[in-house]
């Protein structure tokens, strides 16, 4: 016997076991319908859970992408400032983030496809449950117990097959969701511990600190150079007209006003 037939028999056996428990099929139709509605609820909850999990992974993907972009930017800034060592460090960290990102992206895609299938299965089951409700009313109103038996058997087998299928789909999606949540949790922990996230943001972002330090240093150097140039320009003119003592004082005046709007910059290297 082939695989298809054997699988079908396993499904049938399940339905038959449930049918055997029913004494008067017509009386148990309503009970069966209730059970179907409950399963439908469970399926809907399953779909919602998977969607929630997917959104969470989506947020993490975005965050990892931002980290990767930032490290890339820092590598460029470092190179531009002639610090190849810093650029190398930033790129090494970027590679680590990128690995996490790719693994998570693969899982994200498969979760998305599970979610789509589950959504479709859920609407198929909804249609069948609706059809079963109509059918059971017809069967109850129209047929004698003996006739009803055959018709109920068919409808019941058909719907229990659908329920079995959707039940397996939920189980699969829930397993996958649990796996992803575990992984997402692990990445959260990594970020919290500073292994991933603290490289690029937060108080311990050493690459950024070094870049800032260099940036601030350049600002001070630049300002010093500008002041020196100003002094050099002013000095000859003032030597001509005034005494040395006053000329020094007048020359210092504009330089200190130029510096005044930006005291924080000069203080930062400390």
């Amino acid at each position, binding site marked *: 016997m082939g695989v298809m037939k054997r699988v079908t028999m396993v499904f049938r056996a*399940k339905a038959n076991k449930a049918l055997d428990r029913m004494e008067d099929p017509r009386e148990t139709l309503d009970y069966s319908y209730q059970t179907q509605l409950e399963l439908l609820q469970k399926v809907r909850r399953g779909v919602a859970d998977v969607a929630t999990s997917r959104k969470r992974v989506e947020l993490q993907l975005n965050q990892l992408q931002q980290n990767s972009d930032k490290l890339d930017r820092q590598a460029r800034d470092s190179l531009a400032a002639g610090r190849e060592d810093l650029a190398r460090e930033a790129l090494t960290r970027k590679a680590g983030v990128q690995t996490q990102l790719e693994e998570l992206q693969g899982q994200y895609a498969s979760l998305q496809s599970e979610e789509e299938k589950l959504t479709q299965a859920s609407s198929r089951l909804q249609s069948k449950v609706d059809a079963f409700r109509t059918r059971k009313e017809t069967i109850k109103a129209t047929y004698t117990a003996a006739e009803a038996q055959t018709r109920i058997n068919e*409808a019941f087998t*058909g719907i229990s097959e659908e329920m079995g*299928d959707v*039940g397996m789909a939920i189980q699969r999606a829930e397993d996958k969701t649990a796996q992803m949540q575990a992984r997402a949790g692990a990445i959260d922990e990594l970020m919290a511990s500073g292994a991933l996230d603290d490289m690029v943001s937060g108080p311990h972002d050493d690459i950024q600190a070094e870049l800032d330090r260099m940036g601030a240093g350049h600002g001070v150097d630049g300002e010093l150079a500008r002041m020196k140039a100003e002094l050099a320009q002013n000095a000859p003119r003032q030597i001509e007209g005034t005494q040395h003592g006053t000329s020094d004082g007048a020359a210092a005046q504009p330089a200190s006003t130029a510096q005044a709007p930006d005291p924080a910059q000069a203080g930062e290297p400390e």
Partner: protein
Amino acid sequence: MIVRILGEGQLELPDSAAEELNRLDAALESAVERSDEAAFGTALAALLAKVRQVGSPTNADDLRPSELIIPRPEASMDEVHKLLTDEGLIPG
């Protein structure tokens, strides 16, 4: 003849397809028995391709049970083993 692809729903196939399906199914079964993962993948893909080629989806509110049930396309051999042996895999 109605065939279900697990996870995807039911399709209605002409009865004339039965012989070809049985042949493809026999290949699938022998792969499962030999635990030949590669042959299993090929056989399952061939069976699904045939069913999709000659079948058309039934209405969603069709309550007729399937005559044949095929594992889902992504199914592993291990999963099919469980399908065949463990009733516990099918809830409800």
